[in-house]
């Protein structure tokens, strides 16, 4: 029982990352009709916003420590961040410690800029082109973006720890009356889950309750009609692209402490996020979120030792099995509309 | 006994009754028109005839054989060809290829792995295709991309694609919808020609009364998913029930 509870919890948390990425992907697909293979790269860029901010905050000058030696036997040069000089060591440390949450603010303008530039500079010209062209050009863009990041940051993962206040884990078991240590969950992952819920709620509220959102939703349902109403839907779609970029970026920023960012983390998520979107139903926002959580939970169950004993290797293929099953039984995914992406 | 016998056909969409107890008998080598106001169920009925939809109740027999549960291509192979409201052609292919495809379908059936012989070497097929293009006055456009043609030409091409299969029955779904008067008249002339020159049964769904009364041998009026009257054109013209159905619907 506690094992199942734990995996549900875990699945929700995993699913929240999937849902966030799939949400952004669906926003772009649903509004602009563009299959964006560079979406994973946007997620990766977000994570590297956090890395960059951390780098900026830890910009240092060297102080020679005569008492210790470096690997060559020379006096050790210790890096002292400039922040220490400005704020003092304690406050400086606190700022560096909180660099990931701070990166949320840092990343928003950057991701808006990236999203805007991408849409105006490239994607815009591909609205009328076949999906295969869109896939190819965005795939090319994804390669270019990740190679640029690799050029500056290297191929290895870069640790971006969460603030020390969120270290360790919360004991749900003790709270629910199970034995202690049976259901524990890291604080930061709980933060991520809450954060994802807030973002998802914010996106839905934005689409549901603002006029801007209403027009966009109408545009998603029937672009031509909205165009006929004399509304400049293109401008709004640019904004939506920027929003999708921000959603992907924020998902990446907060993901840093969970898995140390590296340049190919976007590609790692790409296939998975497309599976999520398709299982949810192309173009359906609630579908994307639902499928994200569903796949997260099923993946967690499939990784249980008991399950693996019965079905070895099921953890390798569960996502794809689910995708095949759902697509065969529900042709357009869980909540997809007819006629979307079927040609 | 007609070539097409529709008996007691009903179709529901969710709670909505689209068709109920439709009976229809189309006689061989006649033109039978099905008219009715918008939402009367004309398209639903047509879709039931060609295999796109399966009715909930009733039977549809073509030449003594049931068409129900058969796929569109099987129904076509039985001898029913369909013309769409907006011409459905192969836009990326040439006019000639557009006509060759039904020729092969007629000769080889629904599937034939004919992957080695060249299309250009099939002289009998080519002659047949050229013949039908000549009939519809399109031989000079044979190498054109189908998508690049005018709407009227597309309609004629689609007709040619159907006729080249020498179907026993042609189903037309508002063939003149959205056409200019001149094009409509051309289409009427084309259909008249077809009717006169070939042994063919035509069922036509139409909004345009001019078209209907120029062509039809018999007319069925459909309203709210059920046949109102079936009669000769001259009797339909003044029929009070028909007038009621149309006036009720019309503005």
């Amino acid at each position, binding site marked *: 029982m506690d094992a199942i509870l734990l995996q549900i919890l875990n699945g929700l948390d995993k699913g929240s990352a999937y849902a966030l990425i799939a949400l952004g992907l669906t926003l772009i697909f649903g509004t602009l009709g563009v299959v964006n293979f560079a979406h994973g790269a946007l997620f990766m860029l977000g994570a590297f916003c956090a890395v960059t901010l951390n780098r900026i905050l830890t910009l240092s000058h060297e102080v020679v420590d005569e008492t210790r030696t470096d690997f060559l036997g020379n006096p050790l040069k210790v890096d002292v961040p400039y922040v220490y000089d400005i704020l003092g060591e304690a406050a400086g440390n606190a700022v560096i410690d909180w660099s990931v949450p701070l990166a949320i603010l840092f990343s928003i303008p950057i991701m808006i800029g990236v999203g805007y530039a991408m849409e105006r500079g490239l994607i815009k010209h591909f609205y009328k082109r076949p999906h295969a062209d869109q896939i190819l050009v965005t795939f090319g863009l994804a390669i270019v973006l990740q190679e640029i990041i690799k050029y500056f940051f290297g191929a290895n993962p870069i640790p971006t720890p969460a603030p020390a206040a969120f270290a360790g884990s919360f004991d749900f078991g003790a709270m629910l009356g199970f034995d202690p240590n049976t259901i524990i969950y890291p604080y930061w992952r709980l933060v991520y889950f809450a954060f994802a819920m807030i973002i998802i709620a914010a996106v839905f509220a934005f689409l549901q309750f603002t006029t801007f959102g209403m027009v966009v939703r109408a545009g998603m349902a029937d672009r031509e009609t909205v165009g006929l109403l004399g509304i400049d839907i293109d401008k709004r779609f640019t904004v939506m692209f920027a929003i999708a970029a921000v959603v992907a970026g924020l998902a990446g920023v907060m993901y840093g402490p969970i898995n140390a960012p590296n340049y190919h983390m976007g590609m790692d998520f790409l296939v998975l996020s497309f599976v999520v979107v398709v299982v949810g139903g192309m173009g359906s926002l609630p579908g994307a979120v639902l499928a994200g959580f569903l796949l997260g939970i099923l993946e967690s169950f499939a990784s249980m030792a008991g399950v693996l004993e019965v079905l070895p290797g099921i953890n390798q293929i569960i996502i794809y099995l689910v995708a095949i099953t759902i697509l065969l039984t529900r042709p357009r995914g869980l909540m997809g509309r007819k006629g979307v992406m079927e040609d | 006994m007609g070539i097409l016998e529709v008996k007691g056909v009903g179709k529901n969409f969710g709670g909505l009754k689209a068709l109920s107890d439709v009976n229809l008998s189309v006689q061989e080598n006649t033109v039978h028109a099905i008219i009715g106001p918008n939402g009367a169920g004309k398209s639903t009925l047509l879709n039931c005839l060609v295999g796109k939809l399966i009715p909930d109740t009733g039977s549809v027999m073509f030449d003594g054989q049931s068409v129900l549960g058969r796929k569109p291509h099987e129904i076509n192979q039985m001898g029913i060809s369909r013309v769409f409201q907006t011409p459905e052609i*192969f836009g990326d292919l040439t006019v000639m290829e557009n006509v060759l495809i039904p020729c092969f379908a007629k000769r080889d059936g629904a599937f034939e*792995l004919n992957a080695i012989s060249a299309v250009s070497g099939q002289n009998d097929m080519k002659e047949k295709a050229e013949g039908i293009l000549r009939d519809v006055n399109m031989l000079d456009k044979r190498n054109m991309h189908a998508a690049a043609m005018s709407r009227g030409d597309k309609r004629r091409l689609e007709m040619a694609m159907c006729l080249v299969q020498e179907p026993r029955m042609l189903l037309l779904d508002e063939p003149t919808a959205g056409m200019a008067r001149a094009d409509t008249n051309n289409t009427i002339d084309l259909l008249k020609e077809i009717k006169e020159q070939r042994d063919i049964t035509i069922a036509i769904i139409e909004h345009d009364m001019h078209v209907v009364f120029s062509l039809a041998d018999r007319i069925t009026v459909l309203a709210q998913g059920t046949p109102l009257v079936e009669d000769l054109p001259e009797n339909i013209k003044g029929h009070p029930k028909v007038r009621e159905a149309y006036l009720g619907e019309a503005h």
Partner: protein
Amino acid sequence: MFGLDAKDTRLVLIVAVLTMLAPFILNPFPEGSELAQFNAGYPDLMQRFVIFGIFAIGFNILFGLTGYLSFGHAAFLGVGSYAAIWMMKLLTMNVVPAIFMAIVIAGIFSLFVGWISLRRTGIYFSILTLAFAQMSFALAYSVLTPLTGGETGLQPKMADPRILDGSLAEGTTPRANLFGLQMSSSYELSVGGWLFTFNAGYYLAAVVMLIAFYISIRIFRSPFGMMLRAIKCNQQRLNYTGLNSKPYTLAAFVISGMYAGLAGGLMVAMDTQVGPERMFWTASGEVVLMTILGGAGTLIGPVLGAGMIKYMENIISKINSTILHEWFYWMPDGLEDFVVAMIYPFIGKGWHLTLGIMFMLVVIFLPGGLVEGGQRIARLFGKGKKAETDEGGTKPSSTPAE
């Protein structure tokens, strides 16, 4: 000739001449010269050109004609490879049964995958094929290790049964051969500073590719090919014309799966080793890129695209900073460092970046791929002559492929 019209015959002949003379064409620079770096006329790369050419030609039969975008074709290549290596381990090092079995097994597997995946269209079809391929990869890498060798893959071993072969002489390793002719054997021709290599394996692969290319032309020009193009264009009309599109797409899927299997079998014949990465989704993506880069739906495009990508992967990636410095040694020191620093990110380990930029440029400016580029150039130079608009009619320009 060969049941083809004049234009297609000319194309086949051009391709045949280019492939047969590839050892010369691909080695334009003398040994030891600075530009020898760009020579591609060594057996491994020439083999890869034609093998990936076959893979892309097959993929094009499905994608180029029917428009069904499969994202899992690498799985068939991988399955074909495994089938081939098992034939070599169990039966004989002769490549004929290996290649034959690769085609058969890949055909059966693609029949299964296609039968299920073709129930859906559009991106749903793509995801289904992707799912099957990723499952194949994941299982081959892990739980199927006894069958696939897992991470380290499979190679012929001394201890394999090879029931049709006699026992190996002491001190020799099992080698792939065609009735005794070893695939790795080559003849070198040295003319002045030039060195040309004629490799048995390459010529086998090249002949197979020519046959595969010829068959693909026949398919393109056949009623079957016409039906496939009709499916891409308007599936509804096709169904109402009395044709069942399902078996057509399935047949196209299986044929292209068999092409992939053939490519996989040939890969093993040329280089007797199989690893599961061959089936990873990026490998499936690669063949999509090759086809679109060269020109989907054209005859020669996929081969050009395959050549282009393999050239980048094998030649550009090997240029390192030392070589760059050698090229630009004649410049003033400061300038030399600057030029090298400017070029360095794009070559050697940065070849992925160049590849990405090239995809983008081609897709943005040449939606029809390299074939369209070739046509544009041809039109530029041949304004006076009759304009050749037919796809596939264009001659490969300066691309280093066949």
